[in-house]
């Protein structure tokens, strides 16, 4: 199934894209998606310890099970204010 992945802030430069579309097997977790993305974008992999991940408008952990059509967002620590 297909999910979209959006990048924000300097993660756009690290991934070289603002968003990508990704094919994953049904039942995949966020963690398995991340492994695929980290293999493809090694600069992103280097940031894995200071990375926030949302699906839609909610934060999710690595154990989240992806659904068809999910919009995943990956970004560095936020800095509002």
């Amino acid at each position, binding site marked *: 199934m297909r999910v979209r992945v959006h990048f924000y802030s300097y993660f756009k430069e690290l991934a070289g894209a603002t968003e990508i579309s990704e094919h994953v097997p049904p039942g995949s977790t966020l963690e398995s998606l991340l492994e695929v993305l980290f293999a493809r974008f090694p600069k992103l992999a280097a940031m894995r310890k200071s990375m926030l991940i949302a699906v839609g408008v909610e934060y999710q952990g690595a154990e989240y099970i992806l659904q068809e059509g999910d919009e995943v967002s990956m*970004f560095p620590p936020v800095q509002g204010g």
Partner: protein
Amino acid sequence: MRTELTITVEKLDEEALSRGRAISGEAGAVVCFLGTVRGIEDARLISAIEYEAFEKMARHQFHLIFDQASKRWPLESIRLAHRVGRVPVGEASIWVEVAASHRQEAFAACEFTISEMKRLVPIWKHPIFSAA
């Protein structure tokens, strides 16, 4: 509890925001916070900060924070405005106002709202450095 959230590329008009307050005779305390862009970032002179927001999620996360605040303290209102896009040095990037019956609650909720925003609301800063 009344809430009002503005995310805008326009300059924040502090006077207009203040005038928009509508408090009852029961709200004895209003705490406001105004954050402006400072001229130095990481020991370098800057001319502005470009604020980037994932706006849909930012709105949702702000409302979750307002809900949390209203569960913790009896509040009359929380109003918040965040500017995005390029904000020149000296201009305001954020304005928060909390009204409550008592000052302790208004102060606590205002500080809580700001610190939770800095933890949860997807907005990022990109400093624009001054020409040397």
